[in-house]
């Protein structure tokens, strides 16, 4: 019984940061129609930036609680600086091209960003353990869980709700939805489509960086984190259906639980489990769980 609870809580924690990251991926795909392989690199960038910001916060003698603010600022910095740069400076030249070709463009971005992060931060791992102890431990049954994990779950819920509310209940969000539906008609109605693209891309990157920044305390930040993250978040959005918020949430839960089940019961199958789930879902729901049916060109 207690092991079941542990599996559930582990799965939920894993799902929570994964949801934040995958939400960004699905948003970018929904609006720009780009499946961004470099999304994992932005996650890594967020984690590295968080490591640096938390380090600076420590040297400036901020109160420990403010390390959370430092991590948030790190994500904001990545989104504000790098996202517009890549979208305006690179991606916009490729809009309208074949989806798979766009995947390859982001693959090139991934290669470039891998080396750039190595050039900036070096190849040695960073540890940001400070914020992890902020919320103490929580005892449930015989097991002790780290409070930070639950904060992460809360953060994921808040982020999900804010994005959902922003898209469905605000004027800006309605405009974004209009662009998702048909960018040409939106443009002819006076919507500044390229601004919406930049905005959506920046928010997507912010979510990736946020996921990276807030998981930085739980991992060692080193070259290679991006590669693992992208593969798992792909699985999430594919399971949930590309471009769907509910899908990303459900997909993250499924992947999180599948992984923690595998880790606890059959450790050899960790990576394997995620992809088996994805393959099974795709066999029965080729477009993912929440994808709307698309019309077919004759």
């Amino acid at each position: 019984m207690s092991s079941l609870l542990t599996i559930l809580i582990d799965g939920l924690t894993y799902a929570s940061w994964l949801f934040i990251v995958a939400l960004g991926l699905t948003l970018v795909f929904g609006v720009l129609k780009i499946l961004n392989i470099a999304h994992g690199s932005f996650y890594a960038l967020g984690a590295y930036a968080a490591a640096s910001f938390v380090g600076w916060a420590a040297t400036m003698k901020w109160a420990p609680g403010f390390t959370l603010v430092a991590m948030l600022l790190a994500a904001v910095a990545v989104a504000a600086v790098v996202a517009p740069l890549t979208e305006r400076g690179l991606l916009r030249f490729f809009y309208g091209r074949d989806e798979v070709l766009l995947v390859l463009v982001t693959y090139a971005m991934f290669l470039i960003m891998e080396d750039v992060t190595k050039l900036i931060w070096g190849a040695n791992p960073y540890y940001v353990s400070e914020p992890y102890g902020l919320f103490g431990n929580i005892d449930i049954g015989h097991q002790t869980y780290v409070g930070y994990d639950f904060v992460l779950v809360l953060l994921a819920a808040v982020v999900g709700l804010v994005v959902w509310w922003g898209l469905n209940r605000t004027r800006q969000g309605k405009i974004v939805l209009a662009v998702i539906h048909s960018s040409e008609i939106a443009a002819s109605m006076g919507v500044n489509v390229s601004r919406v693209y930049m905005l959506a891309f920046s928010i997507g990157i912010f979510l990736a960086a946020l996921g990276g920044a807030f998981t930085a305390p739980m991992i060692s930040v080193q070259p290679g984190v991006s590669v693992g993250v992208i593969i798992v978040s792909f699985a999430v959005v594919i399971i949930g259906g590309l471009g769907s918020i509910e899908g990303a949430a459900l997909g993250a839960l499924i992947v999180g639980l599948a992984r923690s089940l595998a880790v606890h019961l059959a450790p050899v199958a960790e990576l394997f489990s995620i992809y088996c789930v994805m393959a099974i879902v795709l066999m029965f729901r080729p477009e993912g769980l929440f994808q709307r049916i698309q019309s077919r060109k004759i």
Partner: protein
Amino acid sequence: MAVIPFSSGPSSSLSRPSASPWRTLALGLGCCATLAVGGLVMPKWLTFLITMAAANGLVSLGIVVLMRGGVVSFGQGMVFALGGYTAALVFNKLGFTDALGLTLAGGTLAALVAAPFAPLLSRYRGIFFAMLTLALSMVTYGLLMKLDMLGGSDGFNLGRPTLLGYALPDAQVGYILYLLTIAMATVMALLARVYFDSTRGLITLAVRENELRVEYLGGSVRQAMVINFILAAFCGGLGGALAVMALGHIDPGFSFWTTSGEFVFVAILAGWQSVIAVFVASTALEVVRSFSSSYFPNTWQLALGLFLLFVIRFLPRGIGSLWIKRGAR
């Protein structure tokens, strides 16, 4: 999407090419012979580079086969690894050491493993096909990492193969594997050309343009996709077996998604029109990789990425489009 008139004359991109088959054959054999003779005077690093380029090019040729039908596999690393592991295991466990036999074994097993997945995958297009194949290759990667019997994450080595009953001497082993690889690449390239110009090959092109019309005209889209997928797997398996013999070592990295990414890179770089462009592109990638890794060891991925972006931006239809004229599209 442009409307493609099915009954149009020789100007249509779907018509049979006007180049004579004999010219293509002569060109292919000529290239192969030139490379074979040239290999005698090339430095060792260059023959190795071309060996790897040709072996990897075979995998990318498989992607081009799929690309002609409008889908791109992001998981050819799987068949590459299957071919490689098959060759290495047959060598180490069964004691069968013939290089040609190992190559064919690699290709055949990759095709056999891919065959049951082909009907499933043939229903998917675009991003979903890419992601599902990626998933398959990552499952393979995960399995290979965890199987201690296969050396786990370190992989294992294999010894020196023989060829047609002859042991390969120290000095010439590199050159002979080079010969085998380019010969295999030439044969597969010529066969690919034959396939592309056959009725089924042309149906594949039509699928790329408009699936529904193909069905209305009595062609089977799924059958074309299934066959293409199996052929692509065969090519990938051959490439994997040849690569592992040249390298003398195999590890699960063969099936990792970044490996697959490089194969897609080469296929996109080549474009879907020309077969020889695949090998030119593969060589270009190897050259860029080896030069940038020796001159900028810390930033070679950066160089590779910039190169890729440059190609996609300025040669959208691949380097094949440099010498194959744009059809009536």
